[in-house]
């Protein structure tokens, strides 16, 4: 990672750490939610942006992490020490099973099979009393560990921030490791990877399982934050939304997932704002959708490509066109 990227990441995390000093309870709650989405988006970035596997069922792993948090919690509240790993493990195990089967397919078939597995999980919680059906279930007592009481908004904020930072650093290290380079090779040219001697299936399965486990972490945090889970957490809308986040931010960059999660959630907040749009705010889907279409049309490399676009405008246009995409890719 070069200096400017590192500076960006450090600045983002410093701002996030300072945010509760400036913001009220609404602001803290909002950014907690966005950070959970950012972890979720990072999990999908590992699959889509790094390995080239377009998974359209990521919400299932998120939802399983969330449901596990509620279903496993005893009435008096659980200890973080075992509840968090249990939720991550539950999502990871489901991802291992889904991945083992769906990774036998490619391209559009893979998209459809992952969607089908997610819908399967969705209907299990939607149509059976096991998870409270369509109403969902409440988390009666939030998990804690000593002074780390996640029932307090400030503590939950700090804990979520730590999880986000941990996930970001972990994935950053992973992507530069031999394992991560192999995943990148699979994205760019899987046939060549096989010809040089990589059995690509175990690599993809490991990435898929890991991605599901990280999505489970995000789901756990979401359930603890909201104190309630419902089947919508596993719906394809959420799988689609998280895909839009990473595309909006810029595929192929961990920072893209971070930027995308913030951009998506803040845009949604903006278009839902009655103060700005009055009665029209209830049609917020329209404004959000059009803005995203506009962004993707004008910025094919995502928001993260914006500085390069500006440089292109200012400096030699023809040169930038020819050299930038390849050089930028190479710098990844």
């Amino acid at each position, binding site marked *: 990672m070069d200096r400017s990227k590192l500076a960006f990441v450090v600045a983002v995390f410093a701002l996030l750490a300072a945010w509760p000093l400036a913001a009220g309870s609404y602001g803290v709650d909002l950014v907690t939610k966005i950070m959970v989405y950012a972890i979720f988006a990072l999990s999908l970035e590992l699959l889509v942006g790094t390995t080239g596997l377009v998974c359209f069922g990521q919400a299932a792993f998120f939802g399983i992490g969330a449901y596990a948090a509620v279903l496993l919690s005893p009435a008096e509240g659980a200890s973080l020490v075992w509840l968090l790993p249990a939720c991550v493990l539950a999502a990871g195990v489901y991802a291992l099973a889904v991945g083992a089967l769906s990774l036998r397919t490619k391209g559009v078939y893979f998209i459809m099979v992952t969607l089908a597995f997610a819908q399967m999980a969705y209907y299990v919680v939607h149509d059976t009393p096991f998870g409270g059906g369509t109403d969902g279930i409440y988390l009666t007592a939030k998990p804690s560990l000593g002074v780390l009481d996640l029932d307090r908004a400030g503590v939950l904020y700090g804990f979520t921030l730590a999880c986000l930072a941990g996930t970001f650093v972990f994935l950053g290290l992973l992507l530069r*490791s031999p*394992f991560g380079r192999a995943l990148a090779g699979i994205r760019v040219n899987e046939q*060549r*990877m*096989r010809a*040089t*001697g990589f059995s690509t299936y175990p690599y993809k399965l490991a990435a898929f399982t890991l991605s599901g486990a990280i999505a489970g972490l995000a789901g756990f945090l979401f359930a603890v934050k909201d104190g309630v889970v419902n089947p919508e957490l596993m719906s394809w809308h959420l799988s689609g939304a998280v895909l839009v986040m990473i595309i909006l931010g810029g595929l192929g960059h961990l920072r893209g997932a971070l930027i995308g999660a913030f951009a998506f959630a803040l845009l949604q907040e903006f278009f839902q704002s009655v103060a700005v749009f009055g009665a029209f705010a209830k049609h917020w889907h329209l404004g959000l959708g059009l803005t995203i279409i506009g962004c993707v049309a004008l910025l094919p490399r995502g928001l993260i490509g914006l500085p390069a676009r500006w440089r292109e405008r200012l400096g030699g246009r023809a040169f930038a066109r020819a050299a930038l995409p390849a050089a930028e890719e*190479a710098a990844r």
Partner: protein
Amino acid sequence: MTAQVLLRGRELTRRWGGLVAVDRVSLELERGSVHAVIGTNGAGKSTLINLLSGEIAPSSGEVQLLGSDVTHWPQPKRARAGLGRSYQRNTIYPSFGVIENCRLAAQARRQQPWGWWRDAARDESTLAAARDAAARAGLTALLDRPAGLLSHGQKRQLEIAMCLATAPEVLLLDEPLAGMGAEETERMLALLAELKHGHAILLVEHDMDAVFRIADRITVMVNGAVIASGTPDDVRASAEVRTAYLGDH
């Protein structure tokens, strides 16, 4: 000294429905020699390479690599056992630098999938193999260039370098000279002549002058079957080859 057979195909056949793409082809690749396979478009040369490398399974027949029967081995396993191949159309990683293209190939031999904290770009063992392979293919000056920005000839050199980085015993090269200029062709032929020592090379190539200059053995295929096999002089003298293939030369 008897030459050591590194790769042996026996009675290899591949059918696509009613079409017999490769019809009972047998051939041997020896260490220290270049075995060229020539034939018109559609003669089954690329399919033969795919059968030998494990990309597709044969309908019948057997492949032996370094004395082991590898007919049922998947391609990655054969590659790890020392079978390297290049492709007719460039299959490099265009967005990666030249050095990373080679390093990733070298990593195939030492995969270390669990060293998640290690920085691959500073992994000396794979980097050394990558630099060495790039140097042998004449790419030392271009190590940091994104592979997608190389000239066509340089991409062909990179194909070979990536092959070499996996430290193979056997090289299956699918038209390494395709689309190359005269000077680039000379450089590639010099490289092949050098690689011959220590490797067994299968060369599929359309450039007849090059083939007759460099090959130690030539196998001629027509419609999936071998019609002649022998030294360049034998093949040149063969009446069947003249009518079937060299007739228009």
